[in-house]
């Protein structure tokens, strides 16, 4: 194992998260089984006290979880000097078989953690814990992801060997290689992909604004925001990266976080992930608008979430467009990469 401070930080974060989540799930199960706000039995009152503590702990843990995705990418980027052939996080993640699976799982955990935080916030606004069972059900659903992520991330860091030659992102995300999802996305033609990106973004933003103003079509917006998230990730590999690097063959989605590109990648991913979490949160809370104790605030909160998602997606698009327009790269129509 490589005793780099970032590696230790990552492992610590993920172990603490898992430990706290397991502790919370234990009480969550009790709450799911015995919770009854009407009766005044001792167990109920104990659970009421406990949920206050657990919600607070989990808020911090899931907040940590959100940060740990970025910390993970940062770590992969910092470790590149140790591996021959790696020049960015893409290479470091390829050092053993666990790197990319860990990343995928971390992305899932990020979204689920964000969703839990939204649900928790809404639950805390009601005086009778209206969403408590849903909250702990979601926790039970999220917990296996976090545990699996911990296992994979441990395996990734612990089986890292310094004398491995890893692939450079140039070949991982090259349009030449037939195998691997990286090159499959990279070989998507750039111009058509641009059209798909902007068109879907326009639909998503319109749907979001419509929901904010008219309070209708919330579920459509949620679906669109998830779709937009996936399309944005694909677009980054397919054409956005080309403009940022000003290299017609460099599709890597990880080099954009480097200092030489002014850490642009972090900002782009922050906007994107923030947008999808608030978009999904919107859809997740819509069914509870009728709940009595949340009547006075939930409607407004959901609309604000939708607006936040719209603003984040818009900022993302603005940034991407700025990069494309100010880039000295010109993708000619005939050349298909």
């Amino acid at each position, binding site marked *: 194992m490589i005793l780099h401070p970032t590696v230790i930080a990552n492992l610590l974060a993920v172990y603490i998260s898992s430990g706290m989540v397991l502790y919370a799930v234990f009480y969550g199960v009790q709450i799911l089984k015995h919770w009854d706000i009407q009766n005044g039995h001792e167990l109920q009152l104990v659970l009421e006290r406990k949920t206050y503590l657990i919600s607070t702990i989990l808020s911090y843990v899931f907040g940590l979880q959100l940060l740990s995705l970025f910390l993970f990418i940062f770590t992969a980027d910092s470790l590149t000097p140790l591996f021959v*052939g790696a020049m960015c996080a893409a290479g470091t993640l390829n050092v053993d078989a666990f790197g990319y699976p860990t990343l995928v799982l971390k992305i899932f955990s990020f979204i689920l953690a964000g969703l839990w935080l939204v649900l928790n916030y809404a639950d805390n606004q009601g005086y009778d814990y209206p969403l408590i069972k849903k909250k702990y059900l979601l926790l039970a659903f999220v917990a296996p992801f976090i545990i699996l992520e911990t296992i994979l991330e441990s395996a990734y860091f612990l089986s890292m060997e310094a004398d491995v030659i890893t692939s450079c992102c140039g070949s991982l995300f090259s349009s030449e290689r037939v195998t691997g999802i990286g090159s499959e996305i990279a070989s998507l033609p750039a111009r058509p992909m641009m059209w798909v990106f902007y068109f879907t973004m326009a639909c998503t933003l319109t749907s979001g604004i419509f929901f904010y103003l008219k309070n209708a079509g919330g579920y459509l917006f949620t679906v669109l925001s998830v779709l937009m998230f996936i399309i944005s990730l694909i677009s980054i590999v397919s054409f956005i990266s080309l403009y940022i690097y000003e290299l017609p063959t460099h599709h890597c989605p990880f080099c954009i976080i480097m200092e030489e590109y002014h850490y642009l990648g972090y900002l782009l991913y922050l906007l994107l992930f923030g947008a999808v979490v608030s978009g999904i949160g919107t859809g997740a809370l819509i069914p509870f608008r009728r709940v009595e104790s949340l009547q006075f605030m939930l409607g407004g909160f959901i609309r604000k979430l939708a607006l936040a998602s719209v603003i984040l997606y818009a900022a993302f698009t603005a940034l991407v467009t700025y990069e494309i327009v100010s880039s000295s790269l010109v993708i000619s129509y005939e050349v298909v990469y």
Partner: protein
Amino acid sequence: MKSSIKSDPVSTQTKNYTQEWNQPVQRLPKIILSLSLLILVFSMDRSYADEPITIKKTDRCPVCGMFVYKYPKWVAQIVFKDGTSYFYDGAKDMFKHIFDTSKYTPGKSAEAMKDIFVTDYYEVELIEAKSAFYVIGSDVLGPMGHELLPFKDQESAQEFLEDHKGKSIIRFQDVTPVIIESLDHRT
């Protein structure tokens, strides 16, 4: 990147000194002069170490996108006839560019290349790529993994091959896309 001495043929220079040559002056300074001229001539087409290479922090290898300034010992360079030049993080990527120029730099072709340089592994100075000796199959890894290691002469290439378990020494014209691919696929 111009050399400090213009590429005048030796004959022009010696013409200027013909008159002095025929003067009945001491022989010693002439011997020293001619010897210096000879040394200068023979060292002219070997190294460009005295010129500073200004690699900007933003210069990237067009093949893999790596920032070249991080790897000063491996720098390769191609200067095109229109004055533009590109830097690479190793001879391998340089050859990749040569073999498929329009892919990495649309609008340019291999015929438009004027000067090609690589960094001698032992001396760590830029040398002419076309006259260099490349060792492949050694255990020394460059930033891109398995590399062709350039040397300015056969002897240093041979010495390196023996020290680092190299497989063979090849010249510029011997390098083919197949060889490059085999370097990429070695683990």
